[in-house]
C-alpha cells in the first residue's frame, strides 16, 4: 500500500442570484509544479468568468493522492461518529478539528462524560493533539480563519 499522486484539480466556485452554488473543475497533470498550477488557476479564472454570468466567488487547487490499493473498512467503523478536538486559536477564539470514525478505544469509559469524552492522554491521541498544537514538519496548523491553533480546550465524540 502506498499513496500515489493523482491529477491536480483546479476548481472554480460559482454562485447565482438565488444563492445556489455550483463548480467548474478541470484537471492538470500530477507532476505540475505548485507555482505553475497557481498560475494556471489565476489565468483560467478570468477566462471562465468571461463566459458565465454567475459570480465566481472562489477557487481551489486540490493536490490529490490516493492509496494504490483498496480494502474494506473494518467492522464497527462509522464516519458519522466523529471526534471533535477544539483548540484555542489566536488570540482568544476556538477552532474545531474533526476526525471521522474515532476509534472507540479513545473514548473514556468512566467519569461525568463517560462514553463521550476522549482520552487525550492516550499516546496516539496525545501525539495527534501535540502535532496540531505545536506544529509538524515546521508547519503550524491554523483554523479556517487563519488563526494558529493553540492548546487543546476539549475533545469529545459527536454523532452526525
Amino acid at each position, binding site marked *: 500500500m502506498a499513496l500515489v499522486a493523482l491529477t491536480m484539480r483546479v476548481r472554480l466556485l460559482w454562485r447565482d442570484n438565488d*444563492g445556489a*452554488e455550483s463548480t467548474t473543475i478541470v484537471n492538470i497533470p500530477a507532476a505540475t509544479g505548485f507555482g505553475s498550477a497557481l498560475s494556471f488557476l489565476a489565468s483560467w479564472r478570468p477566462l471562465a468568468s468571461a463566459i458565465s454570468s454567475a459570480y465566481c466567488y472562489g477557487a481551489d487547487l486540490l493536490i490529490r493522492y490516493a492509496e494504490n490499493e483498496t480494502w474494506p473498512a473494518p467492522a464497527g467503523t462509522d464516519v*458519522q*461518529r*466523529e471526534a*471533535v478536538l*477544539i483548540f484555542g486559536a489566536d488570540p482568544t*477564539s*476556538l*477552532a*474545531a478539528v*474533526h476526525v471521522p470514525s474515532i476509534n472507540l478505544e479513545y473514548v473514556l469509559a468512566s467519569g*461525568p*462524560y463517560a462514553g*463521550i*469524552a476522549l482520552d487525550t492522554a492516550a499516546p496516539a491521541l496525545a501525539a495527534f493533539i501535540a502535532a496540531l498544537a505545536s506544529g509538524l514538519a515546521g508547519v503550524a496548523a491554523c483554523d*479556517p*480563519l487563519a488563526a494558529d491553533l493553540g492548546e487543546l*480546550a*476539549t475533545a*469529545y*465524540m*459527536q*454523532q*452526525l
Partner: protein
Amino acid sequence: MLQYPDAPAEPGCVVLFVPIELVPLVGGLFKRLEQRRRWATEEDWQQGYRAFVELEAQLMSNCLDSLIAEIRAFRGVRPEYESTPEAERTIDMYRDLGDVAAHLNAIVFALRGLEEPDDSILEALRGIVPADEERNIIELLS
C-alpha cells in the same frame, strides 16, 4: 443561507440543559454550522464559525456542576458534615449564605476598628444603602 444576527443592545443569553447523553448529537448539529456554505457571506460565516465552535466547547464544560461547586466552596461545609464525602453532601450540609455574609460583615468592620457593624457590606455592594448613608465601597473597606 444564514445571516449572523445582530446582537441586541443589552447582550443576553439563555441557559439550556442538555441531557449528557445528547451531547454527541447536539454537538453534531452545531458542527453543521461551522460550514461556509451554510452562511450568506464571509463575514456571517466567520462570526457563525466562532460562535458555534464555542457552543460545541461549552457542551463539555459541565457548567452547572462547576457553578454549584464554586458556590458550595464559597459557603463552606458545616463542621458537623466535614467528614461526609463531597459527592454525598446535600445542600443543607453547607453554611447558609446569610451566615457567610454576616461573618464577612463582621470581619470588614473589625478591620475598620469598629466594634459593631454599622453598615451591611452586602447592601453597599448591592447599591441599596440609603442615599444619605451611601459610601464609596473603597471607603467602606478602608
